[in-house]
């Protein structure tokens, strides 16, 4: 398969921790502009896969390419983030002692070295970008509040907002609706679909209702490799998937 038109290309990737193969000969291709949902039982290797893509974990073998030509295994987290891969953690991770606005300000795309940050003053363009994002994630009225005071769901949204501020090409979103109400879950699906219009997105989620809402191609991981891939109906009709989820 050609890498040229892909945003993310994983081929034959394996990684083991203390003899346990967390990822086992995993191959996964994401086209530019595509949104993909990844499902799989606990321990299927979903988060480890994200660790590999974002440079946190080095694979033992296999190829990981971003945007068709960048070998991600040669770069670290900060470099990969600067290339345009944003990541939302499973547990919402925001800067709790900062205001919502400052959280976004630290995430805004721009120079990432110390001295510019030391003498940085917020420009009108940056203020506008922050306003836009606050509108999208609907936290405009809480902009001066500490992130620690947000509800779990609002923290998830703030973290997604921080990803948007980063303006990445590819977003990796780990369990965005964990701990959300049904209404919030629907809102999040709408938000992610909006984002997917001009970004490539990978969403890892357990909530099948939410995955159905997204209406995108689904990849089911099991024991570190792809078990089944296709529409949600196709995947959920796959006997092996049913077996994995319901136990044998």
């Amino acid at each position: 398969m050609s890498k040229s038109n892909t945003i993310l290309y994983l081929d034959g990737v394996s990684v083991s921790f203390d003899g346990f193969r967390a990822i086992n000969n995993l191959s996964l291709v994401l086209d530019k502009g595509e949104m993909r949902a990844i499902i799989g039982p606990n321990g299927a290797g979903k988060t480890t896969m994200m660790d590999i893509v974002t440079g946190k974990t080095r694979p033992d073998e296999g190829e990981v390419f971003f945007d068709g030509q960048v070998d991600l295994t040669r770069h670290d987290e900060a470099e990969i983030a600067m290339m345009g891969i944003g990541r939302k953690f499973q547990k919402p991770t925001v800067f709790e002692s900062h205001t919502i606005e400052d959280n976004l300000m630290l995430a805004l795309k721009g120079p990432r070295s110390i001295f510019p940050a030391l003498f940085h003053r917020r420009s009108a363009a940056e203020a506008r970008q922050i306003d836009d994002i606050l509108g999208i994630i609907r936290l405009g009225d809480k902009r001066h509040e500490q992130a620690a005071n947000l509800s779990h769901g609002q923290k998830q949204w703030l973290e997604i907002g921080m990803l948007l501020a980063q303006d990445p090409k590819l977003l990796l979103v780990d369990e965005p609706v964990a701990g959300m109400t049904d209404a919030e879950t629907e809102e999040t699906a709408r938000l992610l679909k909006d984002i997917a219009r001009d970004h490539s997105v990978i969403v890892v989620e357990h909530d099948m209702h939410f995955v159905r809402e997204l209406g995108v191609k689904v990849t089911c991981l099991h024991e570190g490799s792809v078990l089944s891939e296709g529409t949600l109906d196709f995947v959920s009709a796959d006997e092996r998937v049913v077996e994995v989820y319901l136990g044998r």
Partner: protein
Amino acid sequence: MITGRFFAAGADRRIAITIFILLAAAIIVPLLNLAVSPTSAFYVPAYIVALTGKYLCYALLALALDLVWGYCGILSLGHGAFFALGGYAMGMYLMRQIGSRGVYGNPILPDFMVFLNYKELPWFWYGFDHFWFAAITVLAVPGLLAFIFGWFAFRSRVTGVYLSIITQAMTYALLLAFFRNDMGFGGNNGLTDFKDILGFNVQADATRSALFAASAVMLALAVFVTWAIVGSKYGKLLMAVRDAESRTRFLGWRAENVKLFAFTVSAVMAGIAGALYVPQVGIINPGEFEPSNSIEVVIWAAVGGRGTIVGPIIGALLVNAGKSWFTGVLPELWLFALGGLFVAVTLLLPKGIIGMWDSWRGNARALRAASVVEEAAAKVGVASATSKPARSPARNPGEWSWSDPEPQAAE
């Protein structure tokens, strides 16, 4: 630009007041010592000037530590090493100023070198006869050591208690090295018997007052610099690294560089503190590298309130004043008192004196607001409907109305 922000925003009255008090002290205390007659009630004796000058140096050291510990979560247990290195650089200058007035009367070699049969001045003593050279060394040596140490430690992602242990090991290693006679720094006697600084007698009242003023001004400057750093975007990043380091990495920031900058700036501040300390106490010896000294600095910052600018200063002044008093009254119990103080502060005042003050003020304000609301309600005659006054969220000791979350581990 930053000064503009300082005067325009008026953001932090507490910082402005602190700087004002320090600058006022820099003028008033020397005046009360030099211009007031010793019989007057306002006379400040020279020993008090020297003692408080010493405390101000400790306060600067505590502030330096707080920049990395309070704002970036790096618990350095080796900041005494940077302090001592700054002190040694100043001590070497003061030794060269003795000239031929030493016991052995050698115009080039300090007494201890004559005593240890040195034939000529070691190369690393060159230049210390100039004040400007010593001043640069005071900044450069602690800064460089911190930079090299931090470069390796932060790049290898050594954090938490492991980092604390290696900072402790660093200061201990330096302690052992400086104890050796053939290091060329005076061995366990260190450097002492100073005569002049910039041509003035270090023992003279006027010189002591000038050193006090220099310490106060330098501390005021450090407060301002720390405030500017902490208030900048970089400062916010510093706290972000403290609270969720991996988040900053995945946003593209290099957390190791963020820490390295703060660590280096902090070491330079500690070095300046040491350099001002040595002429005021008249000696520098390897004892300053003692790991326990560095741990004491942590206690000062914790007592005053870490993660604040004024807190460590208050902590350093109070604990040291307490130490001076206590060691006079019950010398053998001082270490128990210090240990007890640390335990008490950790258990009862996790945010230190400043944190307690803020929460007390916050509560008082909330109660006042509540009583105003109640009065207004009583006038309207609906007092019974609003029987429960609004209260600030923090009502119990150990809870704080301005929530300050513990650092959280990310993925």
